[in-house]
């Protein structure tokens, strides 16, 4: 269908009440024509559909020193297509300082979930931009330090008024240095002066929870400095980039919005023939497939390198391929060009069953939702089949040229994360250990014997700086075993514990197959003789091995020590947390209230005991809160 036909089809689907199909067709339109006018069309249609789709509402404020108005419809269209209903508020021109400093400003009354600070070198550091050549070393150093001090005070002020995420765009380098060639020969160069500020911004982000750097300089460089700017647009309408580059900045913002809103993929399922290697293994054989460091096999090797990067960032890899298993396994194990090995894949489906069914099975095996899957396949028909049968899967479009495959995977925003925990880096090996556990479970007949043989240890510790990122990550992405599904940012968690009103505990589980990592979080609040469980969640990979009982038994003991007579908690059902539904009732809690959003449960601590299973060793650490 061409653009006009797609638009007619969308109007027809909306009129007929076919919201999901309309939403898919809007994606198709956007894939064909991501223009400014399409953006307005897409936004208007989604505004009609928003109540019928399950969209994540999100509020974004942009503090800016330049025109960003043309980017707003582009951004909202891209967000809608990613399942995010984005409300955007722009600061007045150059009023960002007042808005940050004044606690009653419209920035804070807007109550944003995230804020972007978009200022540029020429506004904030004119001495280091236009006037650099006429300044002495001392003057430029003073200017640089002043800029850093300003940024520091803005971040401090912002944090004292708001716990939202803050994305700070760093400063770009000029197209040509003010002193020409000499700049590259001097340690007091213009380049270095700007770079110094950017290094300090990075420091600010690492010191402050929920503050991130958007590498604007790298963005400009990636698209070519010379082609980024349009001097006429800057001088006439204060737009510091050529019109076509507004799309690139929007895409960069979306890379942040995906992890911020939890619109991310946990696993990437890949095809084999003509995707991981060139050719068809069943026909071309080991010697015939293209996979090496030279053209044309290098394109496939580069894709494997990109996948390996994802593996090390905690994205699970899986294979779904129509092949004879023996042929494919032979290539996976023994082809000299393979960078990936069987150990890098958490699940394999090499068969002749249709791919949508295989994807459902893979999600089940990995214990994640189908909407946490991304799918990579060179065959547009397979992609179309998955799209129509499993619309919640993120299907990555590939062009016919394999040289572009690796770049496209690297640019896919559902793989972005804002922090990388130790658990992320190890995730692939956790799944390997899981497969060994399952083998053991099959050989042992009694459940108790199986639990005993696991030799489990539950290590429970109060929240610390070191565990904050992982704890917040779990709070934001755990959907299945999660009793209340409350989402907290790092800054909010830290503030809750610092207030003294809440206790936050993390759970780490070890067993004979290794360390499962930090896999559980509980937040409790004590008041008037009762201790309320505000949050209790665990990663699905440890559920069903009784550590959840061990964790709850610890919470009961801790509540008792704090003088509580009752342990209380809510179960708030969502589309996904059925695995936690019977948790309170199966642990002796009584239901006290049933409301629309959920049920409240209580355990009398004076009469009931809640023992830790004998086969789980509890190890309670008294970490200090720094």
């Amino acid at each position, binding site marked *: 269908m061409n653009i006009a036909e797609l638009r007619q089809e969308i109007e027809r689907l909306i009129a007929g009440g076919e919201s999901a199909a309309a939403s898919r067709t809007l994606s198709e339109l956007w894939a064909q024509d991501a223009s*400014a*006018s*399409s953006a307005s069309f897409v936004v*208007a249609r989604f505004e009609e559909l928003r109540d019928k789709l399950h969209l994540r509402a999100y509020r974004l404020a942009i503090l800016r020193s330049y*025109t960003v*108005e043309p980017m707003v*419809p582009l951004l909202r269209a891209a967000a809608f297509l990613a399942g995010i209903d984005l409300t955007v508020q722009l600061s007045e021109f150059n009023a960002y300082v007042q808005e940050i400093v004044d606690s009653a400003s419209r920035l804070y009354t807007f109550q944003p979930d995230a804020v972007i600070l978009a200022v540029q070198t020429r506004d904030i550091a004119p001495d280091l931009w236009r006037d650099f050549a006429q300044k002495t070393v001392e003057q430029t150093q003073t200017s640089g330090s002043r800029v850093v001090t300003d940024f520091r005070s803005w971040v401090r002020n912002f944090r004292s008024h708001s716990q939202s995420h803050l994305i700070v765009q760093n400063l770009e380098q000029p197209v040509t240095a003010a002193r020409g060639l000499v700049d590259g020969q001097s340690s007091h160069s213009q380049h270095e002066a700007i770079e110094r500020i950017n290094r300090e911004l990075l420091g600010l982000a690492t010191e402050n929870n929920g503050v991130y750097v958007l590498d604007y300089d790298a963005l400009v460089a990636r698209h070519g400095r010379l082609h980024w700017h349009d001097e*006429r647009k800057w001088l006439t*309408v204060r737009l510091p980039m050529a*019109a076509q580059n507004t799309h690139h900045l929007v895409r960069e913002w979306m890379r942040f919005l995906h992890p911020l809103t939890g619109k991310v993929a946990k696993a990437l399922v890949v095809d084999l023939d003509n995707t991981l290697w060139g050719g068809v293994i069943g026909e071309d054989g080991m010697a015939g497939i293209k996979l090496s460091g030279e053209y044309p096999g290098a394109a496939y090797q580069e894709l494997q390198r990109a996948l390996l990067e994802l593996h090390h960032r905690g994205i699970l890899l899986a294979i779904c391929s129509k092949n004879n298993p023996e042929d494919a396994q032979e290539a996976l194990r023994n082809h000299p060009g393979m960078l990936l090995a069987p150990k890098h894949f958490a699940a394999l489906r090499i068969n002749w069953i249709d791919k949508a069914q295989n994807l459902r099975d893979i999600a089940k095996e990995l214990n994640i939702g189908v909407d946490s899957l991304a799918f990579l396949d060179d065959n547009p028909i397979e992609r179309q089949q998955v799209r129509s049968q499993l619309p919640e899967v993120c299907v990555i479009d590939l062009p016919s040229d394999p040289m572009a495959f690796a770049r496209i995977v690297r640019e896919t925003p559902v793989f972005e994360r804002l922090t990388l925990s130790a658990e992320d880096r190890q995730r692939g090996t956790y799944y390997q250990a899981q497969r060994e556990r399952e083998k053991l479970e099959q050989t042992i007949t009694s459940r108790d014997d199986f639990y005993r043989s696991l030799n489990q240890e539950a290590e429970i510790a109060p929240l610390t700086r070191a565990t904050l990122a992982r704890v917040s990550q779990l709070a934001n992405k755990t959907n299945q075993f999660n009793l209340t599904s409350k989402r907290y940012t790092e800054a909010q968690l830290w503030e809750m514990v610092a207030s003294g009103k809440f206790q936050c505990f993390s759970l780490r589980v070890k067993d004979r197959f290794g360390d499962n990592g930090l896999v559980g979080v509980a937040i409790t609040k004590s008041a008037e003789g009762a201790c309320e469980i505000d949050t209790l969640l665990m990663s699905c990979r440890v559920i069903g091995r009784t550590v959840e009982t061990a964790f709850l038994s610890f919470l009961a003991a801790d509540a008792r020590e704090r003088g509580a007579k009752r342990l209380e908690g809510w179960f708030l059902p969502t589309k996904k947390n059925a695995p936690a539904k019977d948790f309170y009732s199966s642990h002796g809690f009584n239901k006290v209230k049933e409301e629309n959003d959920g049920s409240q449960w209580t355990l009398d601590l004076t009469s009931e005991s809640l023992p830790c299973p004998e086969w789980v060793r509890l190890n309670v650490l008294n970490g200090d809160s720094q």
Partner: protein
Amino acid sequence: MTSPIFDRVRSIAADVLQAPASQITRESSTETIGSWDSVHHLNLILALEQEFDTQFDPEEIDKMTSIQRIVEAVENKVKPG
């Protein structure tokens, strides 16, 4: 009389200004279309530049305040020779 350029301009204006295409005529202007404020004007100009692969001068942009004037400005740009 309608021309392909007029149709394309009308379609873009309808999208960007969020107005029904059927209500947009050559005479429609910043005076008659309520949503056509300065922000939408800029967005409209950028969308037109993208659609017709051209750039307008600041002097032209200031004058492109009705559909008729936009069509003329576009015709000036895309006219061969």
